[in-house]
């Protein structure tokens, strides 16, 4: 029986408490930090060599779909009523909106050092020490809106620009493609400043602090953000009936992307699952 993932703005107080408590519990158990490590390990780029799975590649969406499922399963082992909520940043767009509330993710980082000092994930409250990180910092940081040079969250129109593209992805299947749903959603652009990152990438930039780097998973907003992106994949499929994950077949030995991306029926490291198997998860969960 499929369970539901809800808009974080619509959670009851009880649901918020249970979600937060389950996160704190898996952090306490040491499971949470494994997710941080995995994300660091799997962020490889298209200007280096080797396989790309989690980013700058067609498998950006199925990789994160499976990654979220793993986290959700860990949460549900603690409390089987918990599911990952999604943050609709086209609607909840300010530094004091949901989810930046005391009983959810806590608020912005303070000016001096961007340290989050409110909510369950504030270092000072003792339950969320960063153990895996890019720096030796122990506290979660945020800089909502990038205070030194303000930017806004992506808009509904920016998201729509991705959703209306009927093609999932296209060669060279990396961060340079200007067409296709995947990179329009992942958000790699060219050039400088505001125009060079969209949707997914822009949100990481907007939150700032810990969410900016390889250890972004240290901020639990990571899950709410990626749940919303995962929802966009479902919306895209409904809008473009029959449109499938691409590439269907792996690039051949003469192709620069040979061995560098995962095709529809290939296994997606670190798991044994294929993108094909992750395209339809309606028997597991649905978004409301």
């Amino acid at each position: 029986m499929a369970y539901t993932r809800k808009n974080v703005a619509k959670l009851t107080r009880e649901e918020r408490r249970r979600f937060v408590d389950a996160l704190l519990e898996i952090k306490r158990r040491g499971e949470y930090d494994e997710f941080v490590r995995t994300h660091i390990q799997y962020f490889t780029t298209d200007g280096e060599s080797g396989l790309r799975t989690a980013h700058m590649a067609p498998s950006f969406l199925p990789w994160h779909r499976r990654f979220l499922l793993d986290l959700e399963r860990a949460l549900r082992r603690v409390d089987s009523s918990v599911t990952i909520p999604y943050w609709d940043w086209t609607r909840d767009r300010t530094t004091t909106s949901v989810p930046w509330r005391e009983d959810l993710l806590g608020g912005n980082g303070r000016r001096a050092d961007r340290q989050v000092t409110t909510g369950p994930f504030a270092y000072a409250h003792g339950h969320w020490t960063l153990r895996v990180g890019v720096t030796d910092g122990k506290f979660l940081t945020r800089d909502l809106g990038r205070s030194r040079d303000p930017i806004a969250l992506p808009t509904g129109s920016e998201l729509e620009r991705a959703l209306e593209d009927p093609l999932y992805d296209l060669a060279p299947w990396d961060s340079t493609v200007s067409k296709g749903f995947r990179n329009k959603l992942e958000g790699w652009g060219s050039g400088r400043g505001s125009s060079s990152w969209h949707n997914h990438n822009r949100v990481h930039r907007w939150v700032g602090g810990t969410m900016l780097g390889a250890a972004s998973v240290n901020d639990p907003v990571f899950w709410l953000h990626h749940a919303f992106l995962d929802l966009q994949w479902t919306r895209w499929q409904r809008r473009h009936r029959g449109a499938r994950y691409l590439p269907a077949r792996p690039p051949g030995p003469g192709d620069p992307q040979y061995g560098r991306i995962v095709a529809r029926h290939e296994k997606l490291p670190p798991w044994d699952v294929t993108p094909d198997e992750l395209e339809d998860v309606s028997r597991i969960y649905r978004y409301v």
Partner: protein
Amino acid sequence: MGVGNGGDGAAGAIPGPPPSSLSSPSSPSRRTRREVTLGLLASGVALAAAPLVAASRPPRPASDPFGAPGGTAAFQETYRGRLIRGAWTPGTGPAGTGQWQVTVDGRPLHLMRRADGTWLSMVDHYQSYPTPLEAARGAVDDMVPGQGLRDVAPGPVGDADRHAHPYSHTQGVPGGVHA
């Protein structure tokens, strides 16, 4: 095969004054506290002596497989109170690939290349910069005062035997991911 063989730091550091000629996504006001101390890295770096070049030198295209910067292959400056150093070392691999070694306050900052020739650092994973120096400054911009870098880099991804790839290493600081 593969786009941008691992570690061929071809973007070319753009050193030294005048700051205004350095391309950067940041606004001019961010530069006001920066002190630029330029020096060539001396021994310990396996480089032939390379002349300094004008700050307006354009970045090298990503398609250059050898990545020899031609001009300056090192930079050093104090930026927002942190010492940034970078050196490009030629490689010993079959294609002569090399890599950039960049440190902030003596600790390694792992950089990665995008297919368009720009650079990401571990501190800022969701936007890229034209040069390793600017990526290092961007990292410093987003580091908390008083905190230092950890030696962290992505690990090998997937099955090593899968689609045997001629350049199967990734540029990185040895040691992989540390807690």
